[in-house]
C-alpha cells in the first residue's frame, strides 16, 4: 500500500482514545440555571460580586445579542446550536474563599498535574525557575493563571509580578480591584457589538485573565493561562484583556484542553490587546481542545474573537498560534495598526485531522503611516478535515507606506481532506505594498520513503516532515512552548497514521 494510502486508512481508525487529555474531573460545581436570559446574566454578575456598571455593560451586550444572528460566511458546517440548552456559568464549588494554592481542591490540582501544567510553585521551582545565579535565558519563569471551566482557580507568582508593577490576575478580580483600568479598556478593542460570539461573550463571560504592564516595564516572566473545559454542556466564555503601557513588553501564553465528550461544547472567548507607544505584546496560543471522535462526534466548537490594537506609535503586536484541536475552529486574531510605524505579525500553524473543520486566519488593518504587517500561515490537513486560511489585509487612505507580506502554505496528507486559501486584499492608497504568496502541496511519497528507508516509522516520518514544514512558525514561539508544540504536532498526527 502506498504510504499516503496507508496514512488515510489509519486516519479512518483514529479513535477518541487517542486524545490524551480526555479525562473528566469529578468535583462539585456551582452552575447557573440552564439557558440564557437577563436572569442568567444577573446571576453571573452577582456570583462575581460585580459593581453595577459591569452588570449594565453585560445587560447591554445581552440585549444587543438578541438582535443578532449567527454568521454563516465561514467554511464550517455544524448543526444549529441551541443557546438555551447550555449552561453559561459553572464554577468548582469552593469550600471557602481561596487565599493560597494549598486551599485549592486537590482534584483540580491533580487535573492540572495531568495536563503537565506547573501550577504548584513547588513544581515551578524545580522545573522552570532558574536557580540563583543561573542566567540561562532559556530557563525562564512562567506565571500561570489557570481557568477551570469558568473561573480562575489560582494565579501563581502574583507577588513577584506585583513588585515589578505588573498586574496579572483573574479579570473578575480586576473588575473589583482595578475598575478604572478595566472600564477604560474593556470593549475598547472588541466592542460589545462586534460580532455574534463576541457580543454573547460580553454578556456572559465568566472569567479570564487581566494583565497590565506599566510604562517602561519589561514583564519579568512569561505569563500563561491554561483553560480547561470540564463541566458537561458548559459554554466557556473567557475574557482576556492585556494592556502594555508606553514602552512596556509582555509575552503571554495560552494553552487549552478539554475532556472528551459526545456532545459538543461551546467555547467563545474574547481576547483584547492594547499596545501603547513603543510597547510590544507577544501572544502565543497552543490550542488542543478535544477535536471529536473518528465519526466526527463531539468536540469543542471554538468561536473566538482575538484582536490587538497597536494604539501607540512604534507599537508591536505579534500573534503566534498552534491550533491542533477543536471540532470547529473559527478564529481570526487580528491587528489594528493605528499608531504610526506600528507593526503586526501573525504566525499560525493549523492542523486538522479526522472530521475537524478549521477556518482561521487574520486581519491586518493598516490605519497609521508606515505600518507593516507580516503573515505566515501553515495549514496541515489530514483525514477528512477541511482547513481554510481566511485573511484580510487593508490599508486606509491615510495609511501611506503600508507594507504587508503574506505567505500561506498548505500541506495535504491523504486525498480526502481539503485546504483552502481565501485572501482579501484592499489598498485604498497607492503607496501600499502588499505581497502575497500561497502554495498547496501534498506530502510527498518520496520524501516519506526516504525517511522511512533511514529507519523512521511512518508516523515519525510524517511528524518530521510536518515539523519541518512549520519550522518558521515554531521558531516564533517562546522556547518552552516550542518544544511542547512540536510534541503536540507529532501527537495530533499520530492520530493520522495509527
Amino acid at each position, binding site marked *: 500500500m502506498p504510504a499516503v494510502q496507508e496514512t488515510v486508512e489509519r486516519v479512518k481508525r483514529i479513535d477518541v482514545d487517542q486524545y490524551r487529555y480526555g479525562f473528566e474531573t469529578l468535583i462539585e460545581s456551582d452552575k447557573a440555571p440552564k439557558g440564557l436570559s437577563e436572569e442568567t446574566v444577573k446571576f453571573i454578575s452577582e456570583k462575581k460580586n460585580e459593581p453595577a456598571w459591569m452588570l449594565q455593560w453585560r445587560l447591554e451586550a445581552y440585549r444587543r445579542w438578541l438582535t443578532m444572528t449567527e454568521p454563516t460566511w465561514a467554511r464550517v458546517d455544524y448543526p444549529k446550536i441551541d443557546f438555551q440548552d447550555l449552561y453559561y456559568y459553572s464554577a468548582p464549588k469552593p469550600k471557602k474563599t481561596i487565599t493560597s494554592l494549598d486551599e485549592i481542591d486537590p482534584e483540580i490540582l491533580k487535573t492540572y498535574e495531568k495536563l503537565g501544567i506547573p501550577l504548584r510553585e513547588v513544581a515551578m521551582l524545580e522545573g522552570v525557575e532558574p536557580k540563583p545565579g543561573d542566567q540561562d535565558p532559556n530557563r525562564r519563569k512562567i506565571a500561570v493563571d489557570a481557568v477551570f471551566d469558568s473561573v480562575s482557580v489560582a494565579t501563581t507568582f502574583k507577588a513577584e509580578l506585583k513588585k515589578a508593577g505588573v498586574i496579572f490576575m483573574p479579570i473578575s478580580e480586576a473588575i473589583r480591584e482595578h475598575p478604572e483600568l478595566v472600564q477604560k479598556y474593556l470593549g475598547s478593542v472588541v466592542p460589545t457589538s462586534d460580532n455574534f460570539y463576541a457580543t454573547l461573550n460580553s454578556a456572559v463571560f465568566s472569567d479570564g485573565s487581566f494583565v497590565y504592564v506599566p510604562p517602561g516595564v519589561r514583564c519579568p516572566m512569561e505569563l500563561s493561562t491554561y483553560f480547561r473545559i470540564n463541566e458537561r454542556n458548559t459554554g466557556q466564555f473567557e475574557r482576556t484583556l492585556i494592556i502594555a503601557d508606553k514602552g512596556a513588553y509582555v509575552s503571554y501564553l495560552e494553552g487549552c484542553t478539554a475532556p472528551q465528550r459526545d456532545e459538543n461544547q461551546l467555547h467563545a472567548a474574547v481576547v483584547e490587546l492594547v499596545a501603547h507607544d513603543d510597547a510590544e505584546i507577544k501572544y502565543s496560543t497552543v490550542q488542543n481542545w478535544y477535536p471529536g471522535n473518528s465519526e466526527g462526534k463531539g468536540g469543542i466548537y471554538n468561536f473566538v474573537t482575538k484582536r490587538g490594537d497597536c494604539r501607540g506609535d512604534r507599537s508591536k503586536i505579534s500573534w503566534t498560534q498552534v491550533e491542533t484541536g477543536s471540532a470547529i475552529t473559527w478564529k481570526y486574531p487580528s491587528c489594528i495598526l493605528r499608531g504610526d510605524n506600528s507593526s503586526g505579525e501573525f504566525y499560525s500553524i493549523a492542523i486538522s485531522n479526522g472530521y475537524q473543520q478549521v477556518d482561521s486566519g487574520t486581519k491586518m488593518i493598516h490605519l497609521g503611516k508606515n505600518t507593516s504587517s507580516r503573515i505566515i500561515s501553515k495549514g496541515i490537513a489530514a483525514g477528512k478535515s477541511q482547513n481554510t486560511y481566511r485573511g484580510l489585509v487593508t490599508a486606509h487612505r491615510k495609511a501611506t507606506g503600508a507594507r504587508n507580506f503574506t505567505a500561506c502554505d498548505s500541506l495535504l496528507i491523504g486525498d480526502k481532506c481539503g485546504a483552502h486559501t481565501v485572501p482579501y486584499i484592499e489598498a485604498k492608497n497607492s503607496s501600499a505594498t502588499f505581497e502575497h504568496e500561497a502554495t498547496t502541496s501534498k506530502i*510527498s*511519497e*518520496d*520524501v516519506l520513503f*526516504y525517511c522511512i528507508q533511514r529507519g523512521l516509522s511512518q508516523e*515519525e516520518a510524517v511528524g*518530521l516532515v510536518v515539523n519541518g514544514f*512549520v519550522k518558521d512558525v515554531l521558531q516564533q514561539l517562546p522556547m518552552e512552548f516550542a518544544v511542547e508544540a512540536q510534541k503536540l504536532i507529532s501527537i495530533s498526527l499520530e492520530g493520522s497514521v495509527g
Partner: protein
Amino acid sequence: MALLEVKDLKVRVEEREILHGLTLTVNEGQVHAIMGPNGSGKSTLSHVIAGKPGYEVTGGQILFRGEDLLEMSPDVRAAKGVFLAFQYPVEIPGVATMTFLRTALNAQRKARGESEYSTPDFLKKVREVSKSLGIPQDMLKRGVNVGFSGGEKKRNEVLQMALFEPSLCILDEMDSGLDIDALRIAADGVNALRSPERAMVVITHYQRLLNYIVPDVVHVMSKGRVVKSGGKELALELEASGYAQFEDAA
C-alpha cells in the same frame, strides 16, 4: 555466507512488468556492481529491496540473512541493516541535516534494542565522518539536501551510510553528478566501509567508478533480468563494446 538472495523476482509497476525473474546472490564481504542500459530496471530492483511502496511483487523472493525481506516494513529493513543511497536524494525543507541524522540513527538503534547515542558521542561521530568526506559542518545545519548541489547530495548519502553502518549498502548511481575529486573522496568513503561482514551493491553506468571501488562480481542487467555475470574485467569489456550484444541475449 549469503547476505542477500534475490530469487526469480518478478515485479510490476502500474500493471507493467519491469523485472521478469531476476536472480542475484550477494555474499558477506563482497562488492557487486550492476551495470545496464537506462530503463533496464536497476533502480526498480534497489527500491524493491528497500521496500518502497508502489511496486507489486508478483513472483520470486528476497532473503536477507535467510529471512524473508518482503515481509518486513521498510523501516524494519533499515534497522536490520539495509541501506539505499538514492539515485535522486530528496530535499526535506525545515529539517536540519543534523537533526535528521540523529533522529534516524536513534530510530534504528531503538528498533534494534540498542541505547540512544548521547549528544557528545553523536556529535563526535558525525564530525569525524563528515570531515573525512569533506562535508563542512555548516552544511549539516541546513535542511536535508535543501539547496545542496548534486555532488553534495551524493556525499550526504555516503555520510549517512558511514554513520548508520549498515550491513548491505546499495548505491544507486552514486557517481552521477560527482566531479573527479568528489568521486574519489566518496569512493574512499565507501572503501573505508568495506569489511568482511558488509556487502555492497554498486549500480553504475561507468567503469570509472569501478577503478575506485573494485568489485568482486559484475552483473549486466538488461530488460529486467541479469543477463551476464563475471569478474571486474566484464566492466572493461562493456566499456569497449556497449550493451548491444547483451540486449539480444535478454
